[in-house]
């Protein structure tokens, strides 16, 4: 298997470039999700997005648009409801499964839907189109720029919301912007990992890197490197394996690294 030769193929180039962009965003966003105890969003948003993606397929449009619309709306609702939402497990679970059911409905109306279901659930990065790659690269750029702009207030309000508020930081606005950026990232990540496994790319890298350093810049940097590694290695392994999707390999790598970091750092306490 001559990987170098394979790299000439457009599909692989597309997959790699899109994934690298997404991985960077995911790692950064995931770092803050952990800090804000909002990792459940990495579970809820993709499922809600599933309905959007399915609807888009039915309309004959790229799933990414459906994902964007559903997840961004959901993110704004979460922002409006505040952190109380975290405790409403039951309500969130019911809404999530409703969205899965809704997505199922859209797809059932579309013939040949089993393939499509798998596509959204497991990820379709190896089949990503040129247009989608462009969309992904641009969106990722916007997301990273967005995070850079709100970086300091975001960091401050994540570490200590009360002090930040007292200092005049617009914490609610920053929170809303952050959630929208999360929604965008999740939507892009669904292309790589599918809606079932977004969590592994979103939260995994930062969860692992936080074991090694408390300093934000270092933790985020390390998380990005890990995420890129998972994405690239995952894609290459999937190309070799043929029937096994990229998302499985990303999940396996992510979990493996996380487990290793927990075992190596056993006994060292760190802020969750």
């Amino acid at each position, binding site marked *: 298997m001559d990987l170098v030769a394979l790299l000439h193929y457009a599909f692989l180039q597309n997959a790699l470039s899109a994934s690298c962009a997404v991985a960077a965003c995911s790692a950064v966003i995931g770092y803050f999700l*952990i800090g804000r*105890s909002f*990792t*459940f969003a*990495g*579970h809820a948003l993709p499922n809600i997005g599933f309905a959007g993606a399915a609807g888009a397929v039915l309309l004959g449009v790229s799933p990414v648009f459906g994902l964007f619309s559903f997840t961004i709306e959901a993110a704004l609702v979460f922002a409006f409801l505040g952190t109380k939402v975290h405790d409403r*497990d*039951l*309500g969130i*679970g*019911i*809404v999530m*499964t*409703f969205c*899965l*059911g*809704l997505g*199922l*409905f859209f797809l*059932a*109306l579309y013939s040949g*839907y*089993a*393939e499509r*279901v*798998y596509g959204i*659930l*497991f990820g379709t990065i190896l089949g990503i189109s040129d247009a989608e790659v462009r969309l992904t690269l641009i969106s990722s750029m916007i997301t990273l720029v967005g995070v850079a702009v709100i970086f300091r207030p975001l960091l401050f309000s994540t570490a200590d919301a009360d002090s930040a508020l007292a200092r005049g930081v617009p914490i609610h606005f920053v929170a809303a912007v952050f959630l929208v950026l999360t929604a965008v990232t999740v939507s892009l990540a669904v292309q790589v990992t*599918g809606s*079932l*496994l977004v*969590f*592994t790319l979103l*939260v*995994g890298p930062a*969860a692992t890197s936080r074991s090694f350093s408390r300093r934000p810049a270092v933790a985020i940097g390390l998380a990005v490197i890990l995420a890129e590694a998972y994405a690239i290695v995952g894609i290459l392994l999937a190309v070799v394996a043929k*029937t*096994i*999707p990229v*998302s*499985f390999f990303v*999940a*396996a790598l*992510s*979990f493996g690294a*996380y487990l290793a970091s*927990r075992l190596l750092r056993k006994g060292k306490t760190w802020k*969750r």
Partner: protein
Amino acid sequence: MEEIIRSDIFRNALLGGSLTAILCTAVGYFMVLRALAFASEALTDIGFAGATGSVLLGWNPFWGMIGLSILAVVALGTLGSSNKLKGRDVDVGMVLSFALGLGVLFLSLYARSSASHASSGVRILFGSLMSLTGPVLRLLLIVAIAVLLVLVLIFRPLLFASVDPNCARAKGVPTKTLDYVYLILLAATTAVSIQAIGVLLAFSLISAPAGAAHKLTRNPALALLVAVLLGLGITWSSILLSFLGPWGKIPLGFYITSFSALIYGLALLRDQFRTRIKLEAPHHHERETTLIED
């Protein structure tokens, strides 16, 4: 239309659906009481790996799911409340995602092996009325009877332990054992619901009718009854629509999750409305007590 209603498939669907509904809602009543939504989610995800793994091996998904879930229950230790899990959401989230990842692996291998496997894979995820055949119904019936029998047997101590574990323990209720037993019942219920509504959607039927019932009444026997009735109502309507509805081939799961969300939403609204009225009415049952020293 007559023809459809008289067909075996319809009768099986009705029977299977009803059994699933009764089972899910009865177990769901306690799931809501014990605030185990997160644990339920966890069991579903871990069970997913078990279900898809056993299908890959050619077995009925029920066994893989129940087997792995029981292992998970034992490994995770006693989960009297979800709080222990919730405090470590990153840890648990990673484990769950990995379990989902395994499920994705197994399902991919299975689905790619043939076209019929592809669609039966979707059925594991989302359920299907057509899959409620004779042998499946028999398994469903046996599990339903077993779980419901155990539930009736432990009803009072489980209720006591769910509400006031310290007092219950003092009165001799084996609270830790009941914690495990209940989780196993929950795992079995989720596993056997795969056939009708699928792994991903089972949560709806377990949580929504019970959640709504809890908001409608505080009387436990009544709440249980209401939950079961709501569940049956949702299921029957869904089955009818799935067979006779305008779009024909729509899976049962869509109707069930939609009605579930609707019922729960309505119960929430009623609650909000009632709270507003209550805040305006004077507090009338606080009596003035005179303090007389004996």
